């Protein structure tokens, strides 16, 4: 009897699936927000350097390791590390490759439900009411006010959409690699790009919608994002940016008072800011889905001599096109045109997408239609990402526990449902979601990516890795990348990770002469004077999940060892 094996039905299918995994909410909301915050020019320099030193190298690494594992019959990160390193401990290094996508899925699907819910509410006119308090709407919809209040199923509640999104994801994942994920991505990715282009054309033709505010026009909106140097006007009272001008000479008299200070976003000075590098590298890292355990699993379903070099670069370029070419021209300019600088500053990813943009659409002619289209765009971007997060878990349960797809889908369905219910119930201030996103979606992700690149450059060996990567390749990776992957990428990654921990865990003030450390909320929530119950429960949940995963890996290891022994005996 021959074992059954899933596979991609076409090369374009796997490329679109990887690109779909990478293109998410961050492309259209997080990237433009960061680029505007740090001054477009300096940010883009750091961004493209990070793309060359982290994004593309880790991407090639994952594609190569994945195809290598697939040749040996492994599709999970643990299995691939086991096949590659042939050491008893190697499989445990891959445990994060199971934990990260599974836990991220638990809260990501909740955000995906917001996007679908907003699209439906926009279509029926609930999101195009001028003057409506969209912050309040967001709070009520997501249950940010208190725990348990989001467990409702009306049109203006998240519950109904969580159920729909959940069933949709598991329906497609149950259909498998080619009939599920691949078919969705083949339709969804072109649709996503088409919708984004329609919205882009609308934004670029907005002109000056309010003649009484001539400064709030499309050109200035684009300039707000892309101008390499600018002067930000900061309110002394709030510390927030209230306006931005290309140079100090252009600042009007109303701001030339003691109530305001000026922050020069000079190109060189901005590049000296470590926070800018951290933000740019982080954006590349999270946007490309490197380190998730997704690419390595997807690539393991390739044929043994399928190209990985050009395919990896194509998936990366698709993500970059959606992020820089489309995302960079839509969100911030649209918000600037209607709301000015004050409407954008200080908004995070969720604030920009679910609070600011509904206000923008409410002021736009045919706004409800464009709002619906925009949130459908976010929903498509999210669903192609969430589907990808399930496959590593499915693959791991199938090959580790020796169960079939139907059983592994059911088991993973139960596991993720518990996690999503947890996030859904503990919705106050989105604390559970935020805590999971920080410790799993950020910290564990850094660790996993570092492990991947070190295993490729040092465990597999750069020369052997190079040889494997180029088997069946349709283009060559410049030899310069040997040095990059072996030395520069791990060092760069560790430096960025170190900076990240110093800032977001230990609360370093970025001063070498007078360093101060004030542990951040993520730490104080766990071990501070007044710990947060939900944050502690969330971390406890993460630890339990990781414990389960380690047990699964242990069981899987025994199966794999027996298989290895049988192969040697044959």
């Amino acid at each position, binding site marked *: 009897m021959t074992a059954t094996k899933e*596979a991609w039905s076409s090369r374009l299918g796997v490329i679109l699936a990887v690109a779909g995994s990478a293109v998410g909410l961050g492309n259209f909301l997080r990237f433009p927000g960061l680029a505007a915050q740090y001054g477009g020019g300096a940010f883009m320099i750091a961004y493209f350097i990070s793309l060359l030193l982290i994004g593309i190298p880790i991407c090639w690494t994952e594609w190569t390791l994945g195809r290598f594992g697939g040749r040996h019959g492994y599709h999970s990160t643990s299995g691939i590390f086991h096949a590659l390193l042939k050491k008893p401990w190697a499989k445990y290094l891959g445990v994060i490759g199971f934990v990260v996508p599974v836990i991220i899925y638990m809260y990501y699907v909740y955000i995906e439900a917001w996007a679908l819910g907003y699209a439906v509410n926009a279509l029926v006119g609930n999101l195009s009411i001028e003057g409506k308090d969209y912050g309040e709407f967001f709070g009520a919809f997501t249950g940010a006010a208190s725990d348990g209040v989001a467990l409702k199923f009306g049109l203006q509640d998240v519950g109904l959409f969580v159920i729909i999104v959940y069933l949709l994801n598991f329906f497609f994942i149950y259909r498998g690699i080619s009939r599920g994920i691949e078919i969705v991505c083949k339709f969804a990715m072109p649709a996503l790009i088409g919708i984004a282009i329609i919205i882009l054309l609308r934004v670029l033709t907005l002109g000056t919608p309010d003649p009484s505010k001539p400064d709030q026009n499309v050109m200035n909106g684009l300039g707000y994002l892309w101008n390499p140097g600018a002067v930000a006007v900061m309110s002394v009272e709030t510390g927030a940016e209230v306006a931005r001008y290309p140079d100090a000479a252009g600042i009007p008299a109303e701001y030339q008072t003691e109530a305001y200070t000026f922050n020069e976003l000079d190109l060189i000075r901005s590049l000296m800011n470590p926070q800018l590098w951290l933000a740019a590298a982080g954006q590349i890292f999270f946007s490309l889905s490197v380190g998730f355990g997704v690419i390595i699993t997807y690539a393991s379903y390739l044929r043994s001599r399928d190209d990985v070099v050009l395919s990896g670069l194509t998936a990366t370029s698709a993500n970059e096109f959606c992020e820089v070419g489309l995302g960079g021209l839509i969100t911030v300019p649209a918000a600037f045109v209607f709301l000015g600088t004050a409407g954008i500053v200080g908004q995070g990813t969720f604030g920009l997408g679910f609070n600011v943009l509904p206000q923008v659409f409410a002021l736009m002619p045919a706004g409800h239609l464009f709002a619906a289209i925009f949130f459908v765009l976010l929903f498509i971007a999210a669903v192609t990402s969430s589907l990808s997060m399930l496959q590593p878990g499915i693959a791991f349960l199938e090959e580790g526990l020796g169960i079939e797809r139907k059983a592994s889908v059911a088991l993973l369905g139960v596991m993720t449902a518990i996690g999503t219910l947890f996030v859904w119930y503990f919705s106050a201030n989105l604390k559970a979601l935020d805590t999971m996103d920080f410790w799993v979606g950020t910290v564990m992700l850094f660790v996993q990516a570092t492990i991947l690149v070190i295993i490729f450059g040092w465990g597999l060996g750069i020369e052997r890795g190079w040889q494997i990567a180029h088997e069946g390749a349709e283009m060559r990776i410049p030899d310069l990348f040997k040095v990059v992957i072996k030395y520069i990428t791990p060092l760069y990654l560790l430096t960025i990770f170190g900076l990240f921990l110093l800032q977001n865990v230990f609360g370093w003030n970025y001063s070498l002469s007078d360093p101060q450390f004030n542990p951040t909320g993520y730490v104080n929530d766990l071990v501070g004077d007044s710990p947060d119950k939900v944050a502690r429960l969330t971390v406890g949940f993460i630890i339990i999940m990781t414990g389960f995963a380690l047990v699964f890996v242990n069981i899987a290891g025994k199966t794999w060892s027996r298989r290895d022994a049988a192969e040697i005996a044959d």
Partner: protein
Amino acid sequence: MTLGGWINMLLSVGFVTVLFIYCVTRVLRGPGSRAEHELAHVEPLDEDETETR
């Protein structure tokens, strides 16, 4: 928008757009595209068939 802003935007957007079009063109014209759509209906495959698709 300043001249620097135009340069920054055109270089950034232009670079990613050209790279994307170049890569997609190479993929669609390359030898790997021949198997396109052939077996989308077949799943799961027998392990020993995956190389002959």
